[in-house]
Every structure is written in C-alpha cells, then in structure tokens.
C-alpha cells in the first residue's frame, strides 16, 4: 500500500467563510467521520471474511497475523535437503569463505560413491548478520535464506549454534526461495 499524500495549498489570510469556523468544523468532522466509517467497514469485512488485507488500517495484529514478506527477504539461512533425503551441500567451503562474520564452520567428508558431504555444518545464529552472501556464493543451491524470522532469539547463546540437523529443510518447502535465487538477481532494486 503506497502512502497517499496531497499537497495542501494553504492561504495565509482566511476568507470570511473560513473565519465563520462553523462550516470548517463541519468539514473537519466529515473528514474524520469518513475515516471512521471506512475503517469500520474494512474492519467488519476483515473480521467476517478473515482476510486481514481487507482492513484499511495498516496495523497488523502481530502474533496472530504476520506481515507479508517480500520475495527478496533474507531470513534465517537454512540448508536444503534434496529429494533423495540427503543434503545438497558438497562441503566446498565457499560459504565459509564468503561469510563476513565467519559464522559458518564445515567439516567435510566423503561417501563411498565418492560424493562429498559436510560431516558437521555449524552456523552460529548469534554471529550471522543475515547478509545472504553464503546463498550467493553457493554453487549447489545448498544454503538459502529462508523467509523465517520468528523465534530466532534465545536467552543462551549456545542454543543459537545451529548444527546440520537443525538447519536442514526439505527442498519442497523452499521452492519459492529456490525459484527466486535461480534468477540470479540478488539486489532488491531489481524488484
């Protein structure tokens, strides 16, 4: 919803009509009354249909309703679990190198068939700055930024060190984000 503004041409000297004040009061009251009834209708429709977008008021009932997240939003970084149930990550270490605050640490290993995988993949959520460079660096689409932004804080920093199991999320749940990064346009200005 774009902001609506109107340029007000305000004359310095008031006309007799304006100085009478009564009709100007009526005009002002009609403006607020219009807002009242428009919002009343909007709130009623939103309550009946259950669609918060029908409400014209910008305020969001936060814990019950969530604001719409833009496509380029960078939430918690997560690892992608492929369709075969294995992580897509090949432990190349590019994300580790790209990470500005150095919050990722990987210990690679090799399977019997010769493919590489991360034996441990630790992402320290307390250090992560949500820059998304790991996502850009990854050649395998294995680490992506999710749209998840809730419950990321803990009272104990040690709880914020996510290991591989905590980071892995099935591919189909990240379909929207994967489609977005395939366009290779990370800058928000492109949207």
């Amino acid at each position, binding site marked *: 919803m774009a902001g609506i503004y109107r340029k007000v041409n305000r004359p310095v000297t008031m006309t007799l009509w304006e100085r009478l004040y009564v009709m100007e*009061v009526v005009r002002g009251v009609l403006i607020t*009354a219009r807002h009242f009834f428009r*919002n009343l209708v909007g709130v009623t429709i939103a309550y009946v249909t259950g669609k918060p977008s029908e409400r*014209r008021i910008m305020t969001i009932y936060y814990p019950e309703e969530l604001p719409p997240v833009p496509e380029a939003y960078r939430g918690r970084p997560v690892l992608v679990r492929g369709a075969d149930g294995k992580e897509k990550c090949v432990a190349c270490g590019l994300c580790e190198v790209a990470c500005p605050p150095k919050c990722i640490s990987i210990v690679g290993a090799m399977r019997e068939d010769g493919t590489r995988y991360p034996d441990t993949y630790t992402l320290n959520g307390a250090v992560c700055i949500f820059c998304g460079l790991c996502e850009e660096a990854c050649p395998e689409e294995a680490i992506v930024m999710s749209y998840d932004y809730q419950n990321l804080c803990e009272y104990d920093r040690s709880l914020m060190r996510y290991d591989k199991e905590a980071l892995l999320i099935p591919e189909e749940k990240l379909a929207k984000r994967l489609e977005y990064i395939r366009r290779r346009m990370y800058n928000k200005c492109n949207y």
Partner: protein
Amino acid sequence: MFDYTYLPEPSLVPYLIEMMAKIMFIFTMNVGVFAPVLGWVERKQSALMQDRIGANRADVFGFTLFGLVHIATDALKLLVKEDFIPRGADRTLHYLAPFIALVPALIAFAVIPFGGQYDLWGHKANMVIADLDVGILYVFAVASLATYGSVIAGWASNNNWSLLGGIRVGAQMLSYEVAMGLTLVGVFMVYGSLRLTDIGVAQENFFHWGIFLQPVGFILFITCALAENKRTPFDVPEAESELVAGYFTEYSGLKFAMFWMAEFLEMVTISAVLVALFFGGWQIPFVTHAGLAGFFGFLGPNGAQVATMLVHVGVFWMKVLVWIFILMLIRWSLPRFRYDQLMNLGWKIILPLALANILVTGAIMLLVK
C-alpha cells in the same frame, strides 16, 4: 397538551412503582451502560478515526470481544489502585470534590423526558422522573453545581497545575453558562414553555423540531454544551500538554474514575438535552403518537400503549447515541482552543449572537402573529 391536574393521591402504589422503575431505568442506563461503555467507545472510535485498531489485548479465556473486556480490567485497575492524597492537601475537600462533580451529572437527567405520556391500565405513566415546570432551568442549575466539584478539586489538591485547572474551570463555566442560558431563550419563546415534556409534545410535527425553528440557537447551544463538558476543543481546564491533567492531576484510583464518569455522564446528559430540545425528543418524524398507537392496535389498548412506549423510549436512546457519536467525533477532530480564543468566543461572539437570536426570534414571532 398534558393533563397537569394528574396527581398521585388516588393511586399511590402504582405511582411509587412507576417512579422507582423510571429511576432504576435511568440510573442503570447511565451508570451501568453508558459510563463504562463510553470508555470503550471513546477508545475504539478515536482509534478508527485515526486509522488505528485500538485497545484489544485484554481477554477472558481468549475472547477479547472487540476490546470490551478492557472495561472490566479498567474497573479492576482503578479499584485496586492506591488512593493518593498529596501532602498539604485539604483531605475533606479532596474526598468531597469527585462526588460533587459526579452527582450533578447523574441528577441532571431527572427532568429529561425519555418518552411521552401513556395510559397503562388506567394509570397515566409519564416517561420523565420529575416533570418540573422549570424544566431546563433545573438542568442549568445542576450543571453549574458540577463546576464546584472541579473548582474544589483544583483548590484542595495543593498543586499548582490543579489550581490553575480549577481557576480555568471557574472562568470557563462562568463565561459559557451565561451564553448557554441565553441561547435557549429562543427555544422557550418558540415553544412557550420551560417544561421539557411540553417541548417534546410540541415537536410531534417534524417541521416543528427545534433544529428547524432555532437553527442558530442550536449551533450556539451545542458550542456552549461542548464547553460545559470540558472536552477538546474546550478542554483548557485539563489541557494535558499544559497542566498535566488540570484539576484532577492529584487524583487516582476510584476518585479519578468518578471524574472520568462525570465527564461521560455529562456527555450523555448534553446529548439528551440536545435531543429533547432540538431533535424531537422521543418523537419519530412523520409519525404521531396516536398514529403509532393505532399501528399497534392489534395488541389491544394496553398492549398498544406499551408497544408505543417501548418504541418511543428506544427512539429517544437511539437519538442520544447518535449525538454521543457526533460529540465524540468533534472531540477527536478539533484541536484545543487557546485560552484567549476561548474567552473571546464565549463573550464576544456567542453572547452577542445569542442576544441577536432572541431579538430576531421575537421579531419573527411578532410578524407571524
């Protein structure tokens, strides 16, 4: 016109029952319904007018009821809050002031008719608690008593802001009561009576409503009434940005709640007076009393009267609700007057206009006659 020879001697018991029922009804409507619910209305209406949502977090077992639960939480909070009296304050007057402010707001309703006169089982029921022949003068007298509550509160608190607020109340009420009395003289001249039931009966014809006969008087009266109510645009006595909270700065807990209730009840009373004087009281446009009773004729003579009474009382309260809504709209739309503007408006604009209104009304009445 009414049969004023009607007196209670022949049937004291029905008279007492009727009286108690009316007093209970008005008291319940004011204290039980309007005082608490208006707090909710004020919050929600101001929120919607300003594109906000308003108070909605208090809940009972997960039901917020559009924020109505806040009424209960407010009451609980104000009940258990510390009742603080500042050092050096006059304790007696400090206790007395909220009562002096609240009681007039309650008793002013005694003369306002919320229905017509009905013949119920041979007993004439008049839907007004006290059908005084001085009518509206009683409302003025009682409304000026309420001023003492605010002034005494300002004096007794031993606080600079309170005292300033109290002084401002005194000056404002004095200025606007003069004008308020004069604005209504035109109405009395047109209807030829001070008795509010007479004025209500005279407005049975839609085109004899006060708003059509006294349009200037109506605008002047609503301005004065807003000033009497001490709410924005005329809230200089409490002026948050200047005087903390004005005359009730040093009040907390239930005593603060009484000032708060007095403000809301004054608003109900003002709406009721406006409806009774300018908007036909209990009358429905283009529907006469006899016509409505005829419409309900299938309920028998008594049933028709009861149905008519219920419709009339409902119509009256609906009109009052509409006026409360408009007063709230005005309160949340307009900024506060500067103090000198307030005094100028009262003495230099409204008072001369009210006098001119009396003159013009008299001239027109002479011409028409």
